[in-house]
């Protein structure tokens, strides 16, 4: 396994060591749950939305170093973005924002994208039911 660690970029290690936006948002506007225990990665992403803009994002993650880093960076990427723009964030964009991920860890960027998508879908569903 440590052969993968040598492929972790400085940015991955920075987000792993000092993850941004850890925690939950009280009364969130959208929550995404993805992953499963068999694969060893579970992500939860919380978003707060004002006038169609994501004003806050927080995460909780059970997973490896890369899973923590992708969770952390995706919260940074979405903050301040309009819902429409946030939906365009791909797993590639997540990986690129971390200066790349080892090939065996690309699934962690997919998980981060899915967590974001799931949170936004939850937000949109809640909006719909309000109307």
């Amino acid at each position: 396994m440590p052969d993968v660690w040598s492929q972790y970029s400085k940015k991955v290690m920075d987000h792993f060591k000092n993850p941004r936006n850890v925690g939950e948002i009280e009364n969130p506007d959208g929550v995404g749950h993805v992953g499963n225990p068999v694969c060893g990665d579970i992500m939860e992403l919380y978003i707060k939305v004002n006038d169609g803009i994501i004003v806050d994002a927080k995460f909780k993650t059970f997973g490896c170093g890369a899973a923590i880093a992708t969770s952390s960076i995706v919260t940074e990427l979405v903050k301040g973005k309009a819902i429409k723009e946030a939906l365009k964030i791909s797993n590639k964009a997540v990986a690129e924002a971390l200066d790349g991920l080892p090939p065996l860890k690309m699934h962690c960027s997919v998980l981060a994208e899915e967590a974001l998508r799931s949170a936004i879908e939850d937000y949109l569903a809640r909006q719909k039911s309000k109307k």
Partner: protein
Amino acid sequence: MRRIYLDHAATTPTHPEVLKAMLPCFTEAFGNPSSVYSYGQEARGAVEKARTKVAKLIGARGEEIVFTSGGTEADNLALKGVAYANGHKGNHIVTTSIEHHAVSEVCKFLGRRGFTITYLPVDEHGLVDPDDVRKAITAKTIIISIIHANNEVGTIEPISEIGKIAKEAEVYFHTDAVQAVGHIPVDVDKLKVDLLSISAHKLYGPKGVGALYVRKGTKLMPLMQGGEQEKRRRAGTENVPAIVGLGKAVELAGQEMAKEVERLAGLRDKLITGLLEKIDHIQLNGHPTRRLPNNVNVSVDFVEGESMLLNLDLEGICASTGSACSSASLEPSHVLLALGLSPEQAHGSLRFTLGRENSEEDIERVLDVLPGIIAKLRAMSPLLKKQNRS
């Protein structure tokens, strides 16, 4: 930063005296043991001396030792060798669900080629029930292969009891003793095994060499065809420096074992007790008493193994996990799952395997550092929150 190596089940540093014994084999004593002149005779002498030392440590005869490229080749030779040489007698193999891949993958391979494999379960401590072995044996069974001491959780299996059953049933009995030889007393007659695998680099010898003990009279088909080395059981020019290294390593292990078993068991118990005291929601994996003197394996709830390892590595501490976040499958350790752990617990496992250079100070350092790492990771764990809610 001072590094603390606590992964001796993965590999061990070569003992300085082992290296010293090996070095002349690269230079002045470079001969081919099959050559008749003095250089050859010297090399032959060195190989045979090493063979005697290996045999002595496990209570065997020199002629029953076949040098291999390591534990994996020894396991392959034992299983395929017996399967192919005894196929006319039957096609059934009995093994367990907690074998090292060097055994389990060979069994799977044979399973795809006409052999039937029975994978026995283990209890929550990783122990195989000898009665299950007895019940699994059929008229078609040709070999039983059961790991001596498990590499992940350190559980020591009731090998001699199973050996008795195998002998009564007249079925060959192999044990992968890679984690046991040099670490706990191993005697092939007491264990009643016909085949036993050894690896040098797990006992402070070099990588790339091991041995298979083959009881006299055991029918075995070689994996390698070629020269007449190893009494035709393993063709290829002997890896003389490595074999000499293995010889020195087993000699030293034999001398130091009694003292080292006691010392390591003390450190092991200090680490286990400390971890259970300092960290909540943690459990010991493997058997509480029937375990290798150097093995500590715990599962820490709500956190994933690799993230713990990475944090430990940043503190200079090298350990291991049964989480498989980097392997292609992503599925955690088959051993931990066989013990009945949930996937979360298996992903949250940590293994520390101690060795001769570890001290009490190293254990204290782990106990100082780990609780903080776990607290930090738990603060970001979605699993902990669910636990509190429920």
